[in-house]
């Protein structure tokens, strides 16, 4: 058979148990643990600017994972993810402000509340497919945004709402250095949960629904249930991400949760790789860092001859935006399957090296 599966040789599994671990090899697992340990040390040597970016990658990455479960794994496009993210943010702020629930509890509770909302707006998924469903989520985006602007009791209306910092046993996580750990812990947990979900029954069912819903149904999968459930799960992740965001920024306002933001979420998972858990994180990092890199680049350019020649000074903002768009395009032209795909290829290359052909 010409069909060789590209499974690394020299790493034989002796039991099904070792064949179902998250990390395909011991080395990769050790690397992952090393990565987390390195991250733990970050606040010690990174400045606030970088920490804030890492924190952003953390809470956005959590929400993006939710979207990837919905889009990448279940195959239902959503253009309303930021509204769920926002709902989680408001919900958590509301729970802690209005009901005095400690923030540590408010965050998961907000996730649960957002799940409920996700299930409601996921109901059309029982009947709608593809873009029709996608646009129904666009409607959800606008309807929720409108709700945020209107529901003074819940969101503070257009003025927004203050969110308390997270405190635990009297210790306030109100600086970047401290909040970093909150986000890191949350992220590791959420990613582990996500990975587990995807390698067990319901996760497989979601993927089956994506790949061939008709045969999935005949294999005993309840389409309506899983299609809707996928919205619920996705909203849960969005809600947790949003809640973390709220208590990081300590202020929530409607304006943040626009369609543009939703599209950015889509960008994260497409760039990272649809249907890839680690890709989600890579994509999020890409989308968060890209504008910053561009900002730095534009600062470097300013005042130089290029600046003078093009008269960039007043227009550097536009130039930066343009280059963000441009990098996204270039990236996709050269890596349409996303970062995760490239990463896999690199790994495969080293596995097979020097016998790659």
């Amino acid at each position, binding site marked *: 058979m010409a069909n060789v599966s590209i499974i690394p040789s020299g790493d034989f599994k002796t039991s099904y148990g070792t064949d179902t671990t998250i990390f395909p090899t011991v080395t990769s697992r050790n690397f992952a643990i090393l990565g987390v340990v390195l991250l733990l040390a970050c606040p010690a040597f990174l400045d606030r600017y970088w920490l804030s970016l890492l924190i952003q990658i953390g809470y956005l990455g959590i929400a993006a994972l939710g979207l990837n479960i919905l889009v990448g794994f279940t195959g239902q496009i959503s253009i309303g993810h930021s509204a769920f993210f926002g709902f989680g943010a408001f919900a958590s702020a509301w729970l802690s402000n209005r009901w005095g629930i400690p923030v540590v509890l408010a965050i998961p509770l907000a996730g649960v509340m957002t799940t409920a909302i996700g299930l409601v707006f996921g109901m059309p998924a029982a009947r709608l497919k593809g873009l*029709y469903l996608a646009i129904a989520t666009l409607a959800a985006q606008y309807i929720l945004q409108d709700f945020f602007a*209107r529901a003074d009791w819940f969101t503070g209306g257009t003025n927004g709402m203050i969110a308390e910092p997270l405190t635990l046993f009297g210790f306030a996580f109100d600086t970047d250095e401290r909040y970093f750990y909150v986000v890191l812990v949350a992220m590791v947990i959420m990613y582990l949960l996500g990975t587990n979900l995807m390698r067990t029954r319901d996760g497989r069912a979601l993927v089956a629904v994506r790949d061939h819903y008709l045969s999935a149904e005949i294999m005993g999968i309840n389409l309506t249930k899983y299609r809707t459930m996928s919205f619920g799960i996705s909203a849960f992740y969005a809600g947790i991400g949003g809640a973390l965001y709220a208590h990081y920024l300590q202020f929530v306002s409607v304006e943040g949760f626009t369609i543009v933001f939703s599209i950015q979420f889509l960008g994260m998972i497409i760039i990272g790789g*649809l249907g890839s858990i680690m890709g989600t994180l890579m994509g999020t990092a890409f989308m968060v860092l890209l504008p910053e890199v561009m900002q730095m680049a534009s600062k470097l350019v300013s005042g130089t001859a290029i600046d003078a020649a093009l008269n960039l000074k007043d227009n550097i903002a536009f130039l930066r935006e343009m280059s963000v768009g441009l990098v996204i*395009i270039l990236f996709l032209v050269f890596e349409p399957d996303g970062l995760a795909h490239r990463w896999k290829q690199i790994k495969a290359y080293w596995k097979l090296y020097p016998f790659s052909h």
Partner: protein
Amino acid sequence: MTLLFQLLVNGLIVGALYGVVAMSFVLIYKASRIVNFAQGEFLLIGAWTCWWLLTSWQLPFWIGFPITLVFMLIFGVVLQVVVLRPMIGEPIISVIMVTIGLSIVFQAAMKWMFGVFAKPFPQIFASPTMDIFGLQVQTVYVVSLAISILIMAGFGWFFKYSRLGLAMRATAFDQQVAQSLGISVRQMFAMSWAISAMVSAVAGVTVGVVNGVSSALSFFGIKVFPAVILGGLDSVIGAVLGGLIVGVLENLAHYLDSQWLNWGNMYEIAPFYVLIAILMVKPYGLFGTKDIERV
């Protein structure tokens, strides 16, 4: 009562414009299954180009406008060749993301070149407004309405009967099969983008003449979604009808709102509620083709 009536007329007029944009969106979708998030920017580019020709070059409208259309045609082809062609055969979702990237680039580029301030068009029609059923309407709306109807009819015929129209649909259905039939996928794509850009420009110029040109024009790109979906993604007639419905709905919602509810922005939100309601009853919009579900 006159208010309601006037609002309805206004809704139809604006809706026709939505319809035109929706059509140009459907065109690309039909030919390539690509959801073009840069549709709004096409309007913007068309409008700015025409504005520039008319103000900087002082061309009369009847020269400047055709040049704009030709430019957009070329623009569409170039865009396809340079950016979208390498994406042929790649996952559709990646291509969609590319259009999002394009919209970011164009949006910023237009602001860079033309500034952020709305710029008015020079006066084009001898009498800028005319009376329709007691409602004063911008002449340019009426003219564009006529053009739109022509375009709509043309599209309808094109996809149903013309050889190229069929080829475009085939390309959308399955690029590999289309190629096996001797259809050049690249040509089809280039053509659909070119036509789409051109048609969008008509809408862009119209809106520009009415409100002045500014980057806000591109919001039409989002407005088309409900319109297109209401009508059914792959239906030209549906797009037109969807556009009209959204236009009327907005105005109707505004009427209810201003007379009784006083919620404020029903205008923007109501179409989305109706959209969901209609979709629950007709999951493929009013005229969309059902997916063929066979095993």
